[in-house]
């Protein structure tokens, strides 16, 4: 048990616990906060994978943007929070069975896979350079097309979100 492994186990437990809380908390806002914690845990995992860029981006995008959006959404739909009905629907038991089945299936299918036990050595510093990723995204021979398509997707989502959520004057009751 190296310190890293201990750290990983702690992080994993935190992530799993907060994920479980996020999907099962009665209050939506608590759910969102647990979700934030889970995301921070994932960011730590990223950092452990020596992808510090992704760790920071994870915080920036998920915590700084998506989580805040979700909390906004929760707050804007507060009236629905106050009804005290069941927060999860009837299919809980069935779903639990299914999910356990899926998880078992995943474990089973991973069982015999050879690179599963792979370990690795620390990366040299030139592999950690964000610059090479940036260059890869602007190089037409590598990923500039996916990059452009992604940006178009983002733009479309931006416009679409504004359009959908825009409150039209004539629809006001």
């Amino acid at each position, binding site marked *: 048990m190296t310190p890293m492994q201990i750290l990983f186990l702690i992080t994993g437990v935190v992530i799993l616990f907060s994920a479980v809380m996020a999907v099962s908390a009665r209050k939506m806002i608590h759910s969102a906060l647990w979700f934030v914690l889970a995301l921070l845990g994932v960011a730590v995992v990223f950092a452990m994978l020596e992808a510090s860029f992704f760790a920071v981006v994870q915080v920036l995008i998920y915590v700084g943007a998506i989580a805040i959006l979700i909390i906004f959404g929760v707050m804007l739909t507060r009236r629905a929070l106050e009804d005290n009905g069941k927060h999860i*629907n009837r*299919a809980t038991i*069935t779903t639990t069975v299914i999910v356990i*089945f899926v998880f078992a*299936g995943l474990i089973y*299918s991973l069982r*015999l896979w050879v690179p599963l036990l792979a370990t690795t050595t620390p990366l040299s510093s030139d592999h950690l350079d964000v610059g090479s990723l940036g260059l890869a995204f602007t190089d037409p021979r590598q990923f500039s097309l996916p990059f452009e398509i992604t940006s178009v997707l983002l733009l479309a989502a931006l416009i679409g979100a504004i359009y959908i959520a825009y409150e039209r004057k004539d629809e006001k009751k």
Partner: protein
Amino acid sequence: MSQLFSLNSLVWLLPLPPLLGFALITLFINRSKRSSHRAALAGAGLSFLASMIVFIKAVTTHALAENPFGSAINWLPTGQTWLKIGVMIDPLTAVMLFFVAWTVLMIFIYSVGYHNFGQPVGAHDQPGLPPHGAEVKEHGKTHHVLSIEPLYSRFFALISLFAFAMYLLVVSDNLLTLYIGWEIMGLCSYLLIGFWYGKESARKAAIKAFITTRIGDVFMLLGLAALYSLTGTLSFKEILSNPQVLGLLSTSLSPVFGLSWAGLIGLLLFIGTIGKSAQFPLHVWLPDAMEGPTPVSAMIHAATMVSAGVYLVIRFFPLISAGWLPGDPLNPTMTIMAVIGAFTALFAATIAMTQNDIKRVLAYSTISQLGYMIAALGIGAYTAAVFHLVTHAFFKALLFLGSGSVIHGMEHGVLHTNEHIDPQDMRNMGGLRHKMPRTFWTYLAGALALSGFPLITAGFWSKDEILSGAFNSSNMIVFITLAAAALLTAFYSARQLSMVFLGEPRTEAAKHASETKPVMTSPLIILAFFAITLGWAGIPHEFPLLGKLSPAWFQEFIGQMLQTEQVSEGHSLIPLITSLMVSLGGLALGWLVYKGIRSAQQLDPMEKAFGFVFRIFQKKYGFDEMYEFLFIRPAHWLAEKLSYQIIDLTLIDGTLHGIALLGVKIGKLLRFGFDLPVVNGIGDSVSSGTKGAGGLLRKMQNGKIQHYMGLAVVFIVVITLIVVYFLHAF
């Protein structure tokens, strides 16, 4: 850039402005009468300018006939070769352009006035009928004045299209585009003759004109096809300027009448001309075409479209006369042309002599003059024919427009006096020279030119040239016939002048006739100028005294077209004296006979003197009746009996009914034997099965998204299990 604005492209663009005008008027601006005539005039004006530029360039080019300018492009692929279309300017085209441009522009301007632009809209006017006039209240009194044509814009659209077709015909360098222009003109002629379609006579005249010219066109198309199949080209230059082709055509024998191929094709094309230029025996449509508005008569049926027929023959003269040299005996095709032309000239002149409708006289006169040209071509007087074509276009356009002006003045009188008379009947006129001085003087110029008044009119020079040609080529029969026709021409010109302008007014309407507006008279003045002066471009060298002054420019210019060294017709005194005699004599005779008419009801003096013969002439030799009896009635009978009753009703309908009955029988059999039990049974069971299955599956489609998600997961798991256990994928 220079390529774009070169003369060559100017020639290509030359016919297009009127077409644009037509499209513009038809599609966009037909609501506005003012914009309509503006568009039409702009189109005609642009083409006119282009034509003048091209004409001046053509005239100043040395040896234009050897090096005509123009170009051709590939148009339709025909197997390995291309059907080319193109434009070409040679001397003949140049002079055609000259007179077409001038007459077309003049007639466009004239039309504005003729259709009463600026007058009020008549209360009772209807589209398709000539305007009845409007009532205007002024100073407490009600005036009847002329009213504007209801279909004003349509008129300008159609004549624009017509002008396009004429320009297209003139500038094309091949028979195909010429034929296209030719047929568009036929269509426009049909539409414009029937312009006042509310009148039954106009409708009939339009159909008559269309069908009659179509007969000629079919033969022309045959000639065209023959030419194409023999030579593989329709380009004028490749056929007519190629001695090899001409020689081949003139020496090879065709299967018909023992004519050479050149002769046969020439004959077929000539039949097209007979239709278009209203030569005997297809002349019957032209007088009836006078049902159209007068500018139409002037433009289509005097100056341009009928000239197109003559133009075709002139253009193909090298083919028709292939192998013939001046002085040789005429070849069969030329003989036919000479005979038909001369006969038509005399024959139409006799009818013209007896008509009372001012426009009909001119119509028969046109036929007669076109006969002159055909006859001239038939005897090989090529330049004379061209010359007469040009001068005739000007003075006949002038005469028609003048007659329109007279009719207009008379209509004004009729409206003013409320007298119910025909404003076109010459018997109702008289003494109009005081009322309509500008019209009179210009009309006088035109009439003198028509009758060949010596020296000062263009008609004299061109007609004299034809008579000399006939005399010198020693075709005495043709010469005598033409001379007689010239005499009659002068006679009926004098008759018309006397009846219309001289003497005293014979009706109230004539007393109150008034001069027409400047927009109508100024084209008359311009055309009168050409009717007088144009002849001086072609005074022959040998003419006493004057011949030394003038260089016979026209003959030289056109003469380039022929390979032979024939500049102008040989000249001698006998034809000169003859033409002087016939013109002056005819004029004097006509004036003497008709100066004494005092009242509209009076019998024609000639009828008094000649009676029966006169009446035959007046009935136009009964050609219309003969055609009616010979062709139309049998055709009707055949159509009724054979086509309708026997073939249509009995044979075709019977067969069809039989098939229908059979179909019904088979259908019934199929319905009860197969459709209902088998097909419907299967269909019903499928549908009820689907319905049942749908009822079962409907419960899954409940709109609850998590339900779907759960199902999807379940199915993925199941499929994965199947893949793993049964296919051993892992």
